[in-house]
């Protein structure tokens, strides 16, 4: 399993497939996080972006490597792995590689937002009226909350990506559209873990209050694990 996951991670890195999602993420983060905007808001943007970006990574690792110049059969590289280790393990290793890529971005993104962070105090108390000093959040607390929210969104994105690719979704044409649509849906749907985590940050920014989205993280981990296990089960039972 370790060897398979390492192989998938290396494939992701060496094939340059890591680059487009990363560039998209970096670009949107640069647009969304302006120097000087409130720290918790920026962490919220970072977390929200990680849903579609991780879904994209999952699609990249689950896809077959492209055949060279029209020859070759696209599943051959995967078929060799499946014969050696079984379809379920190959599927899980691909998802693990995407998870690692997402987690790395979560850490890097949180650090980048910290570097660019704006004020951690709010100019006005929430109820309006005269500004009062002391409406300030602690930076380590805010960063921890931001990281937890980012991991929540990575797990959600992983589940979205796995749902929108073979062996779960067999119609390849709808995969990209489905992943994007589902990402938006889980972000705006009240009650979804990703929505709760991002909302906790944004509300916290308005109220100058740090709220750790631990419950959201746990509720995101459960469906992600279920989708991972389910897709691995399906991988051994679906015809190419």
């Amino acid at each position, binding site marked *: 399993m370790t*060897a*398979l996951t*390492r*192989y998938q991670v*290396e*494939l992701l890195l*060496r*094939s*340059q497939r890591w680059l487009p999602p990363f560039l998209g993420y970096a670009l949107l983060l640069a647009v969304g996080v302006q120097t000087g905007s409130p720290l918790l808001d920026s962490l919220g943007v970072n977390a929200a972006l990680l849903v579609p970006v991780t879904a994209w990574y999952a699609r990249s690792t689950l896809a077959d*490597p*492209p*055949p*060279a110049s029209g*020859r*070759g*059969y*696209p*599943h*051959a*590289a995967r*078929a*060799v*792995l*499946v*014969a*050696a*280790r*079984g*379809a379920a393990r190959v599927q899980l290793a691909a998802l693990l590689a995407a998870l690692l890529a997402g987690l790395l971005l979560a850490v890097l993104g949180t650090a980048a937002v910290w570097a660019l962070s704006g004020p951690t105090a709010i100019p006005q108390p929430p109820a309006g009226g005269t500004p009062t000093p002391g409406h300030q959040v602690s930076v380590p607390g805010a960063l921890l909350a931001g990281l937890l929210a980012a991991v929540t969104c990575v797990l959600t994105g992983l589940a979205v990506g796995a749902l929108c690719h073979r062996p779960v979704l067999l119609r390849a044409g709808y995969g990209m559209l489905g992943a994007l649509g589902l990402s938006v849906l889980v972000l705006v749907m009240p009650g979804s873990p990703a929505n709760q985590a991002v909302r906790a940050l944004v509300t916290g920014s308005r109220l100058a209050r740090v709220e750790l989205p631990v419950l959201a993280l746990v509720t995101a981990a459960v469906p992600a694990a279920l989708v991972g296990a389910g897709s691995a089960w399906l991988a*051994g*039972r*679906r*015809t*190419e």
Partner: protein
Amino acid sequence: MTGLRLAGVGKRYRRGGPWVLRDLELTLPAGALVRIEGANGSGKSTLLKLVGGIEPPSRGRIETSGRRAYVPERFPPALPFDAGDYLCRLGRIHGLSARTAAERTAYWLERFGIADRAGTPLNRLSKGTCQKVAVAQALLAEADVLLLDEAWTGLDQAARAVLDEAAAERAGQGGTVLFVDHDPPPSSGPGYPHRLAGLTTAAYLVQDGRVTAREVPAASAPGPGAPPGEDRGRMQLLVAATAELPELLPGTPERRPQPDGTVRLLVAAEHSDALLRRLLGGSAPAHILEVTRVAAQSGPEAKPLVARASSETRTVAERASAEPRTAAERG
């Protein structure tokens, strides 16, 4: 026991679609070298994919044990790895230690004569060289189930011979080998024997979704490693089996149990090395007491080549295990 078993296996690619294979009952013991025949699109590749776990059966059960390795009919050279790197990684995925994977990678690259390409990216290799990598990937696993789907296609003559040897060796060491190959049928004349003729233990024809056993070509054709056209007579091995000998042994030796519990094995001379290798290789534990040559057309009296002394017997054992790969295994 190793080997593989298919029970009531059926396969169709979509619900309501035609059955590519149906009601397939097949049991193959360890040491089987099995040829799968059939026209294009008859389901040969599907059968190999089912055994390899690449396609799930629509019905029935498939049981294999141990390591499985598969050579696809077409291998994509677009992977972003060097040939050597790719083989090492595949070795690790097959469950080898890092050191064993590296050693076997070097061994197979050398044996296919492409050791100088170890650092070349796969997408810069020629089609034939890439096919050698695809084949090496499966061979370095020393799998219990080896599946070769037209693996010879695109290989040069030297590499074909190496693959012939390697497939026979794998079966000889107790693996189950299934291969598909489009070589000329026997109707082309005696000059065109089937691939691995004489070593193949069974053959099956895939036609109209059914798999039927075929008569295996006679063992008269020379096997790999033997000088063609020369009858070198037979070898007689006196063996004290520590357990029951496997059902399939290289060269299908004639067995003559002796009153004292030992067994005399009579085998065509060109298969005797493979038989010795199997018996000494560990998967079929047996103690070799004596190796003698039986003259081709003469009577039963045999001229001893190796005296009945354990030190001499060990010389034979050492020679048989002096292959580089065996050294890599034990290392």
